[in-house]
């Protein structure tokens, strides 16, 4: 059980959050190809190390958060609102 320091709610157990996986970029719908779209849907880097993730504080403030986490050590480098620049 990790601690995620929610910028709105403070340090909380990770079971208050929904893990939404690695952050991915949605292709432009008008021009996408099946290969590109399905890469977006199903392919993950699954990095052993630093990863950009999205978490949802579903049992807290209901904010979607961008989280930088090291998958080897579980060290969490940053947690911020989606789209907000790193502090």
């Amino acid at each position, binding site marked *: *059980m*990790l*601690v995620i*320091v*929610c*910028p*709105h*709610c*403070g*340090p909380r*157990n990770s079971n208050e959050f*929904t893990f*939404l996986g690695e952050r991915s970029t*949605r292709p432009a*719908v*008008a021009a*996408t190809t*099946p290969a590109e*779209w399905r890469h*977006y*849907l199903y392919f993950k880097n699954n990095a052993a190390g630093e990863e950009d993730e*999205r978490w*949802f504080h*579903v049992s807290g403030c*209901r*904010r*979607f958060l961008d989280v930088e986490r090291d998958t080897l050590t*579980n060290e969490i480098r940053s*947690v911020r*609102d*989606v*789209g907000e620049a790193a502090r």
Partner: protein
Amino acid sequence: MSGSRLGVQPGELIDRDRVVRFRWNGAEHHGFAGDTIASALAAGGVEVFSRSFKYRRPRGILTADYHDPNLFVQVGDEPNVRAGHRLLIGGMDVTAQGAWPSLGFDARAANRVVGRFLSPGFYYKTFISPARLRPAYQKILRRFGAGGKIDPTTPPAHAGKRFAHPDVLVAGGGPAGMAAALGASHRGARVMLVEENHHLGGHLLYGGPESEATLAELRALIGADDAIEVLTNAVVTGRYDHNWVGIVVIQGGEEQLVKARAKCLVVAAGKIERPYVFAGNDLPGVMLSSAARRLINLYAVAPGTRAVVATANESGDAALADLERAGVEVAAVADLRKSGSLLVRAKGRGRVAAVELSGGRTIDADLLVTAVGWTTSTSLLNMAGDRPAYDARAARFLPGELPDDVLAAGGVVGDGSIEAIVDHGRVVGFEAGRRALGTRATWQRLTPRAAPAPEVDPEPTVIPRLPAMPHPELFAGPTDGFVDFSEDVKGRDLALAAAEGYDSIELAKRYTTVTMGSIQGKLAGVNAVAVHAAATGATIAATGTTTWRPPYAPITLGALAGVDEDPVRYSPLHDWHMAHGATPIAAGQWIRPDHYGDPAREVRNTRANVGIIDVSPLGKIDLRGRDVPRLLEFVYTNRWDSLAIGGVRYGVMCAEDGVILDDGVTARLEEGRFYMTTTSSGAGRVWNWIDEWLQTAFPTWDVKTTAVTDGYAAMNIAGPRSRELLERVASGVDSSPESFPYMNARIATVAGVAECIVLRIGFTGELSYEVHVPAGYGLHVWEALLAAGSDLGIAPFGLEAQRIMRLEKGHFIVGQDTDGLTKAYTPGLAGLVKIDKPDFSGKPELVWEGEQGAPRRLVAIQPVDGSVVPPEASQIIAGGRTRGRVTSSRMSPTLERSICLAIVDTEHAAAGAELTIRLPDGRDIAATVLEHHAHVDVDGGRVRG
């Protein structure tokens, strides 16, 4: 005759004024309050407490504490109780475990005779063939299983659970742990101090006058310190990421699981005394020096009458002094620190009778005390990522690198005087407090709304060195004995494993099961490494340890399970339903009325007159803001920007893979106010999904979402006379078909309740109105509708009748008639997929499915023999292959024949196609595909009327 109660000992924990009576294997015994089960039995002369796991050898006291592998007993209906730890309670019914038919005579002890055949892998090697005999083998071998008995009639108990957020958690309540708690508290940290025994103090409890003085001082300081919470009779079961620590506490006989999040963890678990491997080392009467010291000093029990002491350290020396003070005759002392001084073997049948020392010297004795070394209790450090390193000079593994949020104190790190240990603990605790406060400040800084973070001293405290003292390397003697008492693994078993090629200690462990028993290798671990190293010719350092994983000690499943926390949801009308004959059914989290006696009658009444159903579990989301139409355009596949105020539209939501996520209707109540309904089970999912799009893709849109599922009670009145009924109770709305047509919504006053939302929709295929009223008025409106409709033939109907009617109408249910592969074209929603919209969720997949055609279709089918209802999930076959399945099926009270929805391969989906349905009993029946999904009212005249 071993064991008898001594005169008063200075540190004894027993209360001689309180006699406690209990039973042991049916016989009356007594002890004192403060006794453990084992100490009371030892005082009463009991020597054999259990039979061993594999060879069924008699076993007695080895460590006399929590970790004694020989002292697992059954207490009443509770198996696997640690008799060296569990305190005596009056009336306890204690029985020996694993003995069959009795402790004195164990039929399976024949294993001892054939013992040399019971090598590692024996059962696998022997009972593998012929295969036809395996059930017979299983039956016999099951008798040989260890452990106590579970009584299935025991009423279920729910262990409690709580969460704790100490700044510093100290594992171990000996001198170092107590001092660490005080040090951390001195720094300003809130501390949780966890001790597995019933009293704080560790070895200070039986260490003589100096120990007693220190203990009294530490206890007084801790007792006076409000910042320290002490948990005794509590075991830290594991350390997980970010110092998530599990603790099982037993208080008043009740287990409680404490889940603690510590900002800093101090491991002060000390050292565990190690047994010695030699022939006869498991005979009752052979025990560790710490066991002898506990029995004498804590419980005033003489562990024997004539002793041999084999010592290599001060613990053995102290045990010798204790024995002499207690008046136990010491027949011989073997000082294993002196070269040439050996402990060769213990002799005896069923208990120690004599001890053979170096030079063939054999001494008659009923007690053999060994003190050959210590094992560092590194489990929790291991779980924090540490790899302990072997120090040959100190003959034990010592901690290596620790993460910043874990510190080790006291005997885990090294040795020293009581003063040195206390000093070390205090400084470690002080530093742990600093780190914890630093973490707390960091968390505050990361949370803008939190109070400003205080300044924390940036300078680490220098922790004094606590070197491990030299100790002779003593693991196995000149003869072979038991390495693991829990699993009955001997040195030669490890040697055989090595010879068979299990040259890694991790593999040898799994092959021989050494360290895998109930004690989890706390006693056997290092001896196993040493014996295995000797067998492979490697050094102990190169062999390394096996990996310590949680749990540190076995936990009952009950403690882990705790209280059942699955939420159950009830409609505000639930009590009414139950009082009116409803049969409840669980539908997701909701308990709903399945029917009120006869679902077919409910269907016929609704189709003929008017019925009313509680649909409160429907998901309801209030959407407000200028950009709601843009949101709806995006999350639904169809068009929404043209929806007028007062309009209602049905829509389907698809995920980005094109698969149907949910469906429902949304009404536009005002310019910037919309009311969305979802499926009952999809309510939370849809709300989260919408918020995700809004926050991550469209953060500038003006949309506010509020989940109002519990805020409204909802009821659907359906049937040809539902309009008449609505007119009687609703005001502020013109119910005529011209001004309130199908797929419209109005805000109205219903039965005097203002601000109700009335939706004219038709899931059942009837003229129907769904009335959403503030939840607190739900029952009032429900009863008012029933009263107003009594002369119209109104009757409530349940979920089953609704399911029948929607199936008659051919309406699919997401998740029942669709699955995780069903994209929008499969259920024939081409008209609802507007691929001319620039973007919506899942659009590319739906464009492609539209181009290629859906591989499967949802179709309505009817068995040719209308009396047969093929069960849902019946397979549809053609050419010997599965071509689809029945997704919904019922007997239609309206048509008086069976009706179905099915998903079939597109090539078999044409109207009029003949299908074969295979029933679960193997029979095949014929069925026909209909042109439309609806079985009843195909042109929709009823709903639109």
